[in-house]
């Protein structure tokens, strides 16, 4: 830590504190994401244990593809919101979050539709894997949307400061995480 603080010798003590604080937040967030990726790893494995690589022909490939495309678009808007935030542009951030919420929300709703109108029997091994996997994606998606809404409301009420900036960014990065994990699940469920 001493060596790290030494590199910013021109910074005042207060700024060093903020830098350390941000590094702490980022690393804890990374640990959290690492921890959260364990269930995804498990559920992908579980599907192959249960049913191998069988993909039923009755699967609704169109809806799956559309929702995945929507979620990928929302990934880009989420990254754009991070860029806006790094430029300390609260309004731009809010606009990008709105876009992410809209597109990502539709994508998540389509996932709920898939869960509801699953064309395969839940008592089959593919069916149970499908339901559990897409359920995990939906739950994490709803949490991600909730966090985005919180960030949006907070930026409206509190605004952006150097100190608070990272919290907004991490809210967006969590959404990026849910989308990337969904991509893995999509490839596993619909393609392989």
């Amino acid at each position, binding site marked *: *830590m*001493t060596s790290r603080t030494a590199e910013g010798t021109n910074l005042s003590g207060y700024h060093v504190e903020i830098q*350390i*604080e941000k*590094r*702490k937040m980022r*690393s*804890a967030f990374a*640990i*959290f994401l*690492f*921890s*959260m990726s*364990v*269930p995804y790893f*498990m*559920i992908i494995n*579980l599907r192959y*244990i*249960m049913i191998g690589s069988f993909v039923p022909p009755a699967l609704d490939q169109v809806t799956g593809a559309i929702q995945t495309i929507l979620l990928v678009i929302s990934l880009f808007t989420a990254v754009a919101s991070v860029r806006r935030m790094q430029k300390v542009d609260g309004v731009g951030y809010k606009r990008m979050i709105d876009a992410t919420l809209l597109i990502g929300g539709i994508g998540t709703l389509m996932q709920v539709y898939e869960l509801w109108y699953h064309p395969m029997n*839940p*008592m089959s*091994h593919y*069916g*149970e894997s499908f*339901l*559990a996997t897409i*359920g*995990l994606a939906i739950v994490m998606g709803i949490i991600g949307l909730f966090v985005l*809404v*919180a960030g949006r*409301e*907070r*930026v*409206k*009420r*509190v605004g952006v400061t150097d100190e608070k900036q990272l919290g907004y960014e991490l809210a967006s990065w969590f959404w990026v995480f849910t989308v990337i994990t969904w991509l893995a699940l999509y490839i596993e469920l619909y393609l392989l």
Partner: protein
Amino acid sequence: MSVARIGGAPLPLRRKKMMPPVIRGLLWAGIGFLVINCLVAYVLDPGYGTPFITQPSVVFGWLAALAGWLLGIGGLENVLLPAFGISVPTVEVPGWRRYFGYSTNHKVIGIQYLVSSTAGFFIAGLAAMFMRIQLMGNHMWFFPYAGQYIETVGIHGTIMMFSVGTVALVGGLGNYVIPMMIGSNSSAFPRMSALSVWFVPAGIMTVILSPLLGQWTTGWRGYEPLAQNDPNGILFYYLGVFALTLSSLLVSINLTSTILFKRAKGLTWNRLPMYAWGILTVSLLNIIWLPEIELTFVLAILDRVVPLPFFTAVGSPMTYLELFWLFGHPEVYIIVVPAFAIWMEIIPVMARKPLFAREWGIIGLIFVMLLSGLVWAHHMFTNMRLTEMLPFSFFTEMISIPTGFAYMVVIGTIWRSRFRLTVPSLFVLMSMFNFLIGGMTGVFLADPVINLQLHDTFFVVAHFHFTVIGGMVFTWLAAMYYWLPKFSGRIYNSKMGILGAIWVFIGFDGAFGLMFIQGLRGMNRWVPVYPPYLQGLNIIISIFAFVLGLGFLFNLIHVVWAMKSGKKVQENPWQSKTLEWQTASPPEEESFAAAPVITGSFYDYEDTDGTYTIPTAPDPVSM
């Protein structure tokens, strides 16, 4: 991190009279449960005959109750609303009331964890006493039905494992001591920590209330497909464990970040205290394996509620067993790794000698952590393919090597030292003796051929109680006596402390030592009814068990008494060099008035510094 504490600052303008947080939490939890439960049971998914409680309604109702509890306890004002940018001025109540509410002070959180854990320990201990009363007879007499006995076993094991074993030394002592040990005034995420502690009472209550939903007879492992056939009580087992493991997960993320980023200046990795190393390794285990078991339990809930066939007889019950023990064996090391670290923390202080071969102690902790993920299937020798046995047997035997490093370090430290035989050091030595027996019997269990006989008998029961009680609970007691002056500025009565140590030692080794023999004579687990030839020894075991139970009660009363009205001592009665003792005892609101700077090793007692004066009179704290 913004710490919601208003010390000497003027009180905020709006002072709304708030209900006591615990009461409000309970109220909101009740309302949350009723509303969501009724919504699911009567509107969204009415079951046949619209019963008040259905499986889905109780799951969603419980989630709402947990949310209500956490928000009511202070999560609303301190976490949820600030996340939306609404700031609510809150006042942290002074005095004892702060322990019954949301507090961001890591010392308060540590005490909250310790009290919850202790409560869980005595509740589950009471369950154990009931079991031993039943086992004094070879027929049903204390419990009317066998299922009630087996359910008691399950509640005992679940609460002990998830609210005591995983929590006391990590969430409890870790939260209290670790930030001070690394020279910080707060943990990395005090608000998360303040909330995470309240998962523990919720989890314990959930498990205790599980009989309301019906008997579950799977024991603490929730074996499938039996869990699918049992009545609904098993749902509260899953949900209770979910809450408890979530708490431990948050603690681990918090303490890892604390150790990584809150260290004082000069506290390099080479100087990091052993207990911090222990918490770091155990946190990594928690971070990997707790989400694993949580997802497994979510799938098990889906199996019941939807229902899906994952782990049922038509699915793959063996997959559940694998997934459970994948977590289940690291869990054992989640419990004992902090205990190893505490041995290495207390002994150099008592020996007044540098920690011997410190690097090997750290290597031991890390390799135990690494290997613990490779041994899980030794719990499944009786139900796996023969060809799969040997690799797991290999790693199980190998894990004793890094475990042995802890012994090597401690023994090397005591060798030719000036060892103070105090109550904490006595407890550490007892813990090491008991864990040694646990480890040695583990060699027999690691051998598949012997395992086929010993598995699921009282031999295994004795073995894991020797590792968990012997390893962790004895160390917990050692740590409580060791840090007691830190908590309170007071000291225990050494005669009473020694009496307490010998008392639990006799009760423990008597009860569980005889259980080895009982298991070898053919007593299997989970049976309230057994052949008559086993009764005589069971009565003796029960008597020792009651002695043990009273011994724990005695130690509890003694520790509480000492905290309130023990003899006052100097601030650093052990002349320890670790940072937590360089603060006031009990510590101030801010442990360190100024950020400490570390210039040397914490375990170095060879230098001739004048920090500590040699007491002229016989030290009141030594025996």
